[in-house]
């Protein structure tokens, strides 16, 4: 893929997603007292649908504006609340309604909802108009679209008949707005009665009682999910996880357009297992919530194995893989005990409630040791980490393990920083560490534990059971355990947790080398002192450390195995090398300057202090930043290929001083502060031309690359049967690009 194609992809993606804000802009301008009237707007060529939407939203907005004016002068005579209406999408809003179906008060229940209600005065408006306005605002703010189209309407009214009527009317109202906006929506409605317990539960998670009721309904169908886990989900996600319920009425279909789909998930799992669908039996795929995200749970059997996969519903990445032995002759006739009962038996034994636990994992599998199907119930509480094995037909507790808790309860899950490694890479890292080859292991379970930031890896080999935790982005062994495998035919007599309890420890205590050690091995081999090396990469990758560094114009690339052996060493000329004794590496030091006065210094004074410390004349420095930030001045400047970064406190003391090689540095006096006179080198001109053409340097036969008196480089090269001709200006811009058959 060349730069132009990437650019095109980006342009398309942005242009496809840019929201149409014209209506909002023009209405804001006209409300600010300037021109643009409606007749002009409607003359614009528009689709019929957008026009209706404009009117629908416009009407509601106008009515609310009107209502706002009226409530100021009119006293609401009837403040008596007769019904409570809540709207949940991800924003959750609750409205109290009186007997005349006017809104008495409206509360945003979460931050998203605050933005939705911002500036709206719903008091005194008819509930239908209020609902219209709120849904309109959610549409405009992007909470409802084709990827996430489900809305929950909950009505509480002691008068069932009136309540049913209102539920129906509001559902119609919402469907009308969605239709006008050309959105295929899914409106889920319920007439409900909330008791104090439900209200309290809802309040604790900042959601409406209506959404709490929906969560409870999902929980009843999915015993492995907890209330607090589900509270953060949108109605769209909850609706997809729900397999149907009598208390809720749904019009329309909840969108799963954001996900890869059942077929792709199935393909990913089968491909990983190396099987064709015809070689499997009992294949099921369903949407699930796992590791803080939507997943597809894919299960199937083949030969003597049971497979279980969790596939990230958005990216298609395998987050969990499990392979268990099912002995010949054993068939799964289904558990007589359901998973919720197994979970409750474990909770009861632990003396805990569902609200007190997290990271709940429920697994139904065949135990070779007990020779029967069992539920494995794992969960964590504030005090301990629990593992239970429960007989799937009798509910008898076969095993219970308990370990002191090492993690705190995770907060709401955020974005991953850094890329997740694959579950395969996690398995490999564990195998490597254990010194076991993949061919020798029996069964496996690799599961992403998003909250703890690790993949949990379990497998058995030669009568030993291994349990690892591998950093989900680093691929490093965080923790590991070894135990005698109870199920192994040779290990008779040992039951429960009486195994050879293995060492639990950090990476330091293991045979695996650390990244630093790997770096030292590489540096030593290269004969380069650490201080002289510009380290670019030390990364665990697929069974080895990838080490890259530069020194004195040479680029080094090493692969160091976990045992410290060198798998690969490569040396290359560093094309980016800038000579002229630029300092390399990173040195951080702290020192206090002599200016001890307590008066606050100016930004200029701070700069002078930093320059003096660096030994750089102001005229030679390219100042990038002098900014006040949280109690100090942030000073950044460049000079002679070195990047300086300072923090100067108000009293003039230096809090931080850092030097780094300036990767952007272009020698030959070209980096000027104005940018107007800078000239690129012939090599850079060639690179620009090659990049534009999407041709690798190695593939190009350069015919010409010279400075032309007209103020540009003439660059000509041939590649892949084509002839390219470029004119590259002194500032790197392309003046001419031609392509012809060679």
């Amino acid at each position, binding site marked *: 893929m060349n730069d132009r194609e990437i650019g095109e992809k980006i342009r398309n993606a942005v242009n496809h997603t*840019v929201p149409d804000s014209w209506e909002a802009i023009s209405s804001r301008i006209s409300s600010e007292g300037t021109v643009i009237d409606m007749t002009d707007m409607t003359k614009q060529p528009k689709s019929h649908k957008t026009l209706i939407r404009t009117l629908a939203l416009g009407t509601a907005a106008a009515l609310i504006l009107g209502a706002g004016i009226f409530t100021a002068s009119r006293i609401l005579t009837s403040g008596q609340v007769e019904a409570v209406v809540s709207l949940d999408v991800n924003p959750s809003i609750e409205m109290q309604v009186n007997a005349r179906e006017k809104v008495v008060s409206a509360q945003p229940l979460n931050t998203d909802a605050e933005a939705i209600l911002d500036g709206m005065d719903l008091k005194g408006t008819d509930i239908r108009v209020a609902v219209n306005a709120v849904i309109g605002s959610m549409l405009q703010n*992007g909470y409802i679209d084709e*990827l996430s189209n489900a809305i929950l309407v909950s009505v509480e009214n002691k008068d069932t008949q009136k309540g049913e009527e209102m539920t129906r009317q509001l559902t119609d109202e919402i469907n009308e707005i969605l239709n006008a906006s050309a959105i295929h929506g899914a409106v889920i409605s319920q007439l409900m009665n909330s008791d104090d317990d439900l209200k309290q539960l809802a309040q604790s998670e900042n959601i409406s009682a209506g959404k709490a009721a929906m969560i409870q309904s999902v929980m009843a169908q999915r015993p492995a999910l907890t209330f607090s886990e589900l509270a953060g989900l949108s109605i769209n996600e909850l609706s997809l996880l729900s397999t149907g319920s009598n208390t809720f009425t749904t019009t329309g279909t909840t969108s799963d357009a954001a996900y890869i789909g059942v077929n792709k998930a199935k393909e990913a799992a089968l491909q990983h297992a190396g099987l064709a669908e015809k070689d499997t039996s009992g294949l099921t795929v369903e949407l699930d919530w796992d590791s803080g995200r939507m997943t597809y749970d894919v299960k199937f059997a083949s030969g003597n194995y049971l497979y279980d996969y969790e596939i990230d519903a958005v990216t298609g990445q395998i987050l969990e893989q499990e392979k268990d032995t099912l002995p010949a002759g054993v068939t799964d006739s289904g558990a007589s005990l359901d998973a919720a009962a197994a979970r409750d038996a474990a909770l009861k034994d632990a003396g805990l409630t569902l609200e007190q636990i997290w990271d709940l994992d429920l697994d139904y599998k065949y135990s070779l040791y007990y020779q029967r199907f069992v539920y494995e119930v794992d969960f964590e509480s504030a005090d301990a980490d629990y593992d239970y094995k429960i007989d799937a037909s009798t509910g008898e507790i076969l095993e219970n393990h308990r370990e002191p808790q090492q993690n705190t309860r995770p907060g709401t899950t955020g974005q991953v920083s850094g890329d997740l490694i694959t579950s395969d890479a996690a398995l490999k890292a564990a195998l490597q560490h254990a010194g076991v080859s993949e061919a020798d292991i029996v069964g496996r379970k690799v599961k992403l534990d998003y909250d703890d930031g690790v993949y949990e890896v379990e497998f058995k080999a030669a009568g030993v059971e291994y349990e690892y935790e591998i950093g989900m982005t680093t691929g490093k062994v965080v923790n590991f355990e070894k135990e005698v495998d109870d199920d192994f035919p040779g290990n008779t007599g040992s039951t429960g947790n009486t195994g050879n309890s293995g060492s639990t420890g950090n990476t330091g205590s293991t045979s695996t080398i650390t990244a630093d050690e790997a770096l030292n091995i590489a540096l030593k081999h290269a004969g380069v002192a650490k201080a002289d090396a510009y380290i670019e990469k030390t990364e665990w990758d697929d069974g080895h450390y990838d080490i890259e560094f530069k020194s004195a114009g040479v680029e080094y690339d090493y692969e160091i195995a976990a045992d410290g052996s060198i798998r690969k060493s490569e040396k290359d000329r560093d094309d980016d090398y800038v000579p002229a004794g630029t300092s390399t590496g990173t040195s951080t030091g702290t020192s206090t300057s002599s200016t001890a006065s307590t008066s606050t210094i100016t930004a200029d004074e701070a700069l002078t202090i930093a320059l003096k410390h660096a030994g750089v004349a102001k005229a030679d420095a390219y100042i990038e930043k002098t900014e006040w930030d949280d109690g100090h001045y942030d000073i950044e400047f460049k000079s002679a290929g070195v990047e300086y970064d300072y923090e100067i406190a108000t009293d003039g003391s230096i809090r931080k001083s850092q030097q780094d090689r300036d990767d*952007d540095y272009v020698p030959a006096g070209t980096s000027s502060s104005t940018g107007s006179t800078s000239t*690129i080198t012939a090599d850079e001109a060639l690179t620009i031309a090659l990049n534009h053409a999407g041709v690798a340097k190695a593939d190009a036969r350069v015919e010409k690359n010279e400075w032309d008196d007209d103020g540009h480089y003439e660059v000509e090269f041939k590649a892949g049967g084509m002839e390219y001709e470029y004119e590259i200006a002194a500032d790197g811009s392309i003046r001419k690009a*031609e392509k012809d058959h060679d």
Partner: protein
Amino acid sequence: MNSFRLTSTTEQDHQLQAQRLEHDLSRIAAGDPEGLRALYEETRGSVYGFALSILKSVQDAEDVLQETYIRIHGAAGRYQPQGRPLAWILTITRNLAMMKLRERGRRADPEEFQWEQFSLPDNAQGVEDRLTLLALLQNLSDEERQIVVLHAVSGFKHREIAALLQRPLPTVLSKYHRAMKKLRTMLEVE
């Protein structure tokens, strides 16, 4: 003859666009409502893309998108025709986006990018767009992202980007190439 002159046509396109936008700006200044509409249709991708690349939040970017045109509407009379109307517009966008960032800092609840907020159609194109945006928003540094978007969406030359972002040209060039390298690996892996 299978020869084409890529840059000359894009250069021509740029000049034509600049003329159109300056014409629109003069219409806005004269109180013609159609001027803003035309300007909006032509530049909203550039404005939104740039705002998104700074803010990484669909909602904040949309706010800035609206605000930019409100500002243009009020300030069109002050525009001095210099043949770079888009740079003028994007400077407004940049200032508004920076204000938004500061406001966000005060609120201390950064509304970081959430892909769910993108409304994309349920087809191959929609999926591709989403992956591209994910790569763009999650894996590039702030400056890299702004440079790439200005170049790809608004067709800005590197020296124009350097002027707009107030960064030296070599910095822009090297960041651009680094970013494209990252994007290539990511988009090809998909």
